[in-house]
């Protein structure tokens, strides 16, 4: 591994508590911990330059605006974009809502959009809402739980009316890393708009929006060491300029009259009201932190970890353990979703351990903190034949010893709960 996990942990003050209380945090697909550098950037803003942005011509107003603008530039360049292609939003969910709500008027309301079954609710429900509001048709294509999405999967669902395809670059439940650049290229040849949910990819691997051939792309700050309440919608200038505004209010206008208004230029057109200024500054500091490590190293570290996890799974060979997702670490993120189940009788006890109990017990027994539930991906979960699973997910501060503790916990849980 190219990453010195112990060195990295020293940047995260919460590890003091983790060490004290014996906690192994493995819910990084839900949210990540924050390094001191990020918190310090936010605190320093509060204690030195805090003021509103865009309009203040006095000193601290100009300073705040400069910090905010610099943050946008820094985050943009991190994914190969230009500053004016980045809209600050609350989270990936809001970014996808802007896409789904505003594209129908760009592509026409009788259009069809294709999404996959492995999508997070945030890349499903906004399209359903747009369908209700504007009449566009949403098609959910099937995908296999142990394979990437292929061009053939998409092709089966293409019609003349298909004008939008929206896919996640990495599944938050299967860990599948989809190979999207080739798909993007073909979609563009067909004049189809390509939206990418990058909530699980931008934090974990090098992402270049130009190489991806996407038109819009969404991600969240809190999943990449940054604060919550901040995320980005990347969009090509062409798309952003063609889309109508989403919310109205301060900052996003040029002029307002009694009966109407004109909009500001992009990206401000999509940023109504006072933005999350310290959120942007914190996310920029997170980007700096990740750049110092190098996204290639982040990816290879997590690949090592998932490889090790799959090896341990075979080594332990727990009777009740079933996991999902591709077995090839090359196309698999650091996400391990599983169930503990032996048979199927009427009553719950002895045959399976409910994921909530797995999560609760893993924490109580070995301090291993993992998620349980549908992980906001009900269609995929149901397609796996269940309503809930448990999930462990890794980040830069996790090491192989965390994987060991995790399997140790599963073994103890099986012993306690499976007849």
């Amino acid at each position, binding site marked *: 591994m190219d990453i010195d996990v112990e060195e990295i942990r020293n940047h995260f003050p919460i590890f003091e508590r983790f060490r004290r209380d014996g906690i192994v945090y493995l819910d990084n697909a839900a949210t990540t911990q924050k390094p001191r550098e990020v918190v310090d950037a936010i605190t320093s803003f509060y204690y030195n330059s805090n003021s509103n942005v865009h309009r203040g011509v006095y000193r601290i107003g100009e300073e705040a605006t400069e910090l905010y603008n610099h943050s946008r530039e820094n985050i943009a360049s991190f994914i190969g974009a230009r500053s004016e292609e980045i809209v600050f939003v609350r989270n990936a969910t809001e970014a996808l809502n802007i896409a789904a709500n505003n594209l129908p008027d760009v592509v026409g309301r009788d259009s069809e959009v294709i999404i996959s079954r492995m999508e997070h609710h945030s890349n499903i429900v906004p399209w359903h809402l747009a369908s209700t509001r504007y009449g566009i048709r949403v098609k959910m294509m099937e995908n296999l739980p142990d394979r990437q999405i292929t061009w053939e999967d998409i092709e089966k669902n293409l019609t003349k009316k298909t004008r939008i395809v929206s896919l996640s670059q990495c599944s938050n439940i299967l860990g599948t890393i989809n190979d999207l650049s080739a798909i993007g290229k073909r979609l563009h040849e067909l004049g189809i708009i390509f939206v990418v949910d990058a909530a699980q990819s931008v934090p974990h691997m090098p992402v270049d929006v130009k190489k991806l051939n996407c038109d819009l792309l969404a991600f969240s700050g809190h999943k990449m060491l940054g604060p919550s309440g901040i995320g980005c919608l990347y969009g090509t200038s062409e798309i952003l300029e063609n889309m109508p505004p989403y919310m109205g209010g301060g900052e996003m206008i040029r002029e307002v009259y009694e009966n109407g208004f004109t909009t500001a230029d992009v990206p401000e057109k999509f940023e109504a009201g006072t933005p999350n200024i310290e959120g942007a500054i914190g996310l920029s500091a997170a980007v700096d932190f990740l750049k110092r490590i190098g996204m290639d190293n982040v990816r290879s570290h997590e690949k090592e970890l998932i490889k090790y996890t799959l090896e341990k799974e075979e080594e332990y060979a727990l009777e009740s353990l079933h996991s999902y997702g591709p077995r090839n670490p090359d196309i698999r993120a650091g996400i391990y979703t599983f169930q503990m189940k032996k048979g199927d009788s*009427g*009553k*719950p*006890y*002895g045959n399976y351990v*409910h*994921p*909530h*109990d797995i999560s*609760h*017990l893993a924490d*109580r*027994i070995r301090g291993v903190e993992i998620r*349980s*539930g*549908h992980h906001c991906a*009900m269609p995929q*979960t149901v397609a796996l034949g269940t*309503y*809930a699973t448990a999930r462990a997910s890794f980040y830069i501060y996790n090491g192989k010893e965390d994987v060991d503790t995790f399997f140790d916990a599963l073994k*103890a849980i099986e*012993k*306690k709960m499976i007849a």
Partner: protein
Amino acid sequence: MTDDTIYSQILDDHYREPRNFGRMEDPDVQVTETNPTCGDTISLFIKVKDGNLEEISYVASGCLISVASASILSEKATGSSLKEIRTMAKSDVLKNLGLKLGPAREKCALISYDALMKAIDRYNSS
């Protein structure tokens, strides 16, 4: 705390042998309730006689907490008057479990309670 004493003896026992578990033929009311945190569901059945809860049963695909909580609740409620049951508070249910739960798991513990209250309301308004 050892691996075996995380949940109380009582909870473990109710989970291993849930009382009144199963579907019911010809219930007066049937209610299905979902836990939005995890998609877990409980189907709960009641039979009422002379204003009293004569019979209650349920099937649940839930976790230990939700199954044990449903089992304990079903024992407490059987034979009581609907009126009396309706005055039970959520805090009573949580107290019966004898375990401090966080907000997410409280929802697990209360799904059977929600279902039972709905069933009673539906019975009363029919």
